């Protein structure tokens, strides 16, 4: 028994120390939020007239991309029609642009050829052998023939037939320099063709020209379970910009002709092939498209979201980047950290006064959870753009006070027992068992809260939920793997069984009843 306790204690201390050192060696450290250290400010101006609803979808896409797990706390402001994205801690302007990426313009292109993505081979060698001719012109005439005549320009012609056609027009004006040039001089590919990598499958796709955009679907694609597997169901918009466009493409691909030999349609976002489903029926008359495959739940949800995004895209001009200074500055952080540490010190003094020697365990436990949290935060700063704002830092300090509760619950149970005449050694294991049930019930509730809020919200609420979950988990881990063995082991020592260690002795009857 003793050996297992020692083992658990050593293991958790090593884990905390190890992850801390590893992060220190790797140079990871918590990065600071916009208010404390500033960052990059990217201004994005939409091209042409914009539907406000579409713009807010675009803001959602950007938020999703910048802040996928909800801890980066970027500021996304709409200033008139422009969108300003402030990224914390980003000094490199190119990095800021890369993070934001392009908007979620989703394209559908017929797949001409699929190849392995060899790391060291250039894309031109892969596609060198293809002789497929592409009837690029046919697609452009389908929607808005007036706009194809114009070479690439920044001003967008007024939408000829609803939102859908204007989006297509934007694509074609930028990719077709002249009406009859058959070969793109840069890539050596026939006009309109392109080679794009798959997002995760490590394949390269040779694709025909974009024949439809995400706008053929309405904005309610969803991931569903069908026949035991995950599928994505998307509804087609009716009319020329929706079902007709999609059916034209699917009919062509179903036929498997020269312009779609693989019978597959690639769904592309930001220059990556998200999915390339093979077409099973020539037309989709009931207005609903089901994409199935060996999806995992995440993949299916991801694809559904991509389709939702694609349904209402906004085209932005080249964004401008500026660096932005901190709005509060380091003084505030120092003030918060200093006063926070003093606060924690006060808590420890209070516990020392109240629980005497047992407070050592609290100091140890808080150090272990502190190291663990620091490691996780540093690691996320590096990988997920986590940035601590002033209130975030203050929140973590406050959470320490709340974490102390687990110790209080445990120690109060110990005190009860000691008062009833048990020895500390005798009551430690029993006391922990009872306290653990309480801690588990209360922490489970906190965890439920964290998961629900994280799952369903965005922005700073999501960041809050993340940290709540993190600190609750740390609390449970430390309670079980550190506090329990530490107290159980200490309770066996002579020191802790001498006199009034907890500040209480067996109750005197006269006092108890009086």
């Amino acid at each position: 028994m003793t050996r297992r306790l020692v083992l658990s204690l050593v293991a958790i201390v090593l884990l905390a120390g190890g992850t801390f050192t590893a992060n220190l060696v790797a140079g990871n450290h918590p990065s600071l939020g916009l208010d404390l250290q500033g960052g990059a400010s990217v201004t994005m101006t939409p091209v042409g007239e914009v539907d406000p609803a579409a713009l807010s979808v675009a803001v959602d896409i950007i938020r999703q991309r910048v802040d996928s797990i909800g801890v980066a706390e970027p500021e996304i402001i709409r200033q008139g029609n422009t969108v300003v994205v402030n990224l914390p801690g980003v000094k490199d302007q190119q990095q800021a642009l890369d993070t934001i990426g392009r908007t979620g313009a989703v394209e559908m292109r017929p797949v001409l050829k699929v190849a392995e993505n060899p790391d060291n081979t250039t894309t031109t060698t892969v596609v060198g052998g293809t002789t497929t001719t592409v009837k690029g012109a046919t697609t452009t005439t389908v929607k808005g023939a007036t706009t194809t005549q114009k070479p690439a320009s920044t001003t967008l012609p007024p939408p000829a037939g609803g939102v859908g056609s204007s989006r297509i027009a934007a694509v074609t004006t930028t990719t077709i320099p002249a009406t009859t040039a058959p070969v793109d001089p840069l890539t050596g590919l026939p006009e309109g063709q392109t080679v794009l990598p798959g997002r995760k499958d490590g394949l390269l796709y040779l694709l025909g020209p974009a024949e439809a955009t995400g706008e053929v679907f309405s904005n309610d694609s969803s991931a569903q379970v069908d026949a035991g597997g995950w599928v994505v169901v998307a509804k087609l918009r009716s009319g020329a910009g929706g079902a007709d466009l999609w059916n034209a493409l699917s009919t062509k691909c179903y036929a498997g002709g020269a312009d779609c030999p693989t019978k597959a349609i690639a769904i592309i976002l930001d220059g990556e092939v998200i999915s390339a489903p093979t077409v099973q029926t020539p037309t989709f008359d009931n207005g609903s498209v089901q994409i199935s495959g060996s999806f995992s739940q995440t993949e299916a949800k991801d694809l559904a979201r991509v389709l939702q995004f694609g349904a209402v895209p906004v085209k932005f001009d080249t964004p401008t980047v500026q660096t932005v200074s901190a709005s509060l500055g380091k003084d505030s952080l120092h003030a918060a950290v200093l006063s926070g540490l003093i606060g924690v010190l006060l808590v420890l003094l209070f516990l020392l006064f109240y629980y005497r020697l047992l407070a050592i365990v609290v100091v140890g436990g808080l150090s272990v959870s502190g190291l663990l949290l620091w490691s996780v935060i540093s690691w996320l700063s590096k990988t997920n753009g986590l940035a601590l704002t002033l209130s975030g830092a203050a929140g973590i300090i406050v959470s320490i006070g709340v974490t102390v509760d687990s110790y209080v619950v445990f120690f109060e149970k110990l005190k009860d027992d000691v008062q009833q005449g048990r020895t500390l050694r005798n009551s430690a294991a029993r006391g922990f068992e009872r306290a653990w049930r309480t801690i588990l019930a209360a922490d489970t509730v906190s965890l439920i809260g964290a998961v629900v809020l994280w799952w369903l919200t965005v922005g700073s609420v999501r960041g809050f939920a993340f940290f709540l979950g993190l600190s609750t988990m740390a609390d449970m881990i430390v309670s079980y793997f550190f506090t329990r063995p530490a107290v159980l082991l200490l309770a066996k020592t002579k020191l802790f069984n001498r006199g009034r260690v907890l500040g209480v002795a067996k109750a005197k009857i006269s006092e108890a009843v009086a």
Partner: protein
Amino acid sequence: MAGGMSRLFRGETTINFYGRRNVGFIASALLLVVTVGSLFSQGLNLGIDFKGGVAFEVPVAGTMSEAKAKEILVANKIKTDNVKIQTLTSGTTKRVRIQLGDLPVTTRTTIQESLAKSANATVNDVSVSTVSSTWGRNITTKAIKALLIFFLIVSLFIAWRFEWRMALSAIIAMVHDVGISVGVYSVFKLEVTPATVVAFLTILGFSLYDTIVVFDKVHDNNERFSGSKVSYGDIVNVSMNEVLMRSLNTSIAALLPVLSLLVLGSGVFGAIALREFALALLVGLATGAYSSIYIASPLLGILKERSDQHRPMRGHLSIGVDMAHLMHTGAPVGRRAAARAATDASQGIIPAPVAVEALLSHPPRPRKKSRR
């Protein structure tokens, strides 16, 4: 050391929380009425992150700087606590961006002119644009939806782990805490920022956590007293007194860092941004600790006293010495117990004389020789 503090320290208090439940209910009801009244009459003072506002951009030239910009705002009688002043750098050109809440047109023009003057620029060089909220409507909608689902799941969890009456009481107490915290913000017209929302959520979590710990004790005691004729009010009272020290300790431990942030951080070190965040937490944590004892538990008592199991003993409370007896022995004293003893005596059953020692404490198990 036989004073009140000492008894508190040893968990020997016998405070009749349940009997005085109306004190807490009335106090809370008054506060909630004030909250609702204030919300209707003056609403909440939403910050720029919720409402949007105005953004000025001035080129950095002449005497222009972040500090100068602040001066100009102060000169125009604008509170600068929640104004965001930042420097934008792009290549070699620098601009100061000032974001603040909505302004009357005249003030806006005055500020624009003052800014232009100190930057040695024309008024047209100072751009003024309206900015949207960073905290859009859909973030609020999503958060509220998430919160409702959270309430639902937590209720189900508590109902499963404990019982539905506890779930109901806990949720009511939680709503009460947030209500009062919001009320404080409304009454004192404090500016609501995203940090405030996070603080409110922290309060919610803390309040719930605290309530669960208290209910866990009630749950234990309910089992402990299940064999004896004890009213639920007594169980609540005993539990409250037993967890009182733990509740106080936890609250002190949670409040100390917050107080330190408030007094030292924003007062002594001058980080004003911390003030309102710390204030929201302070109010909320205090309310959370209060409501577990004065709202959640009495509510639970009221609900339970009406249940079949506890109805016969409803309204009967052991107070003072009787409560201490109950806490230590797990058996009630008082008229009913005495009556029972009398019946026993009339039937010829004479209880063996019991040593006070044995009555008052659970006898310790004899120490075993230490095993190695």
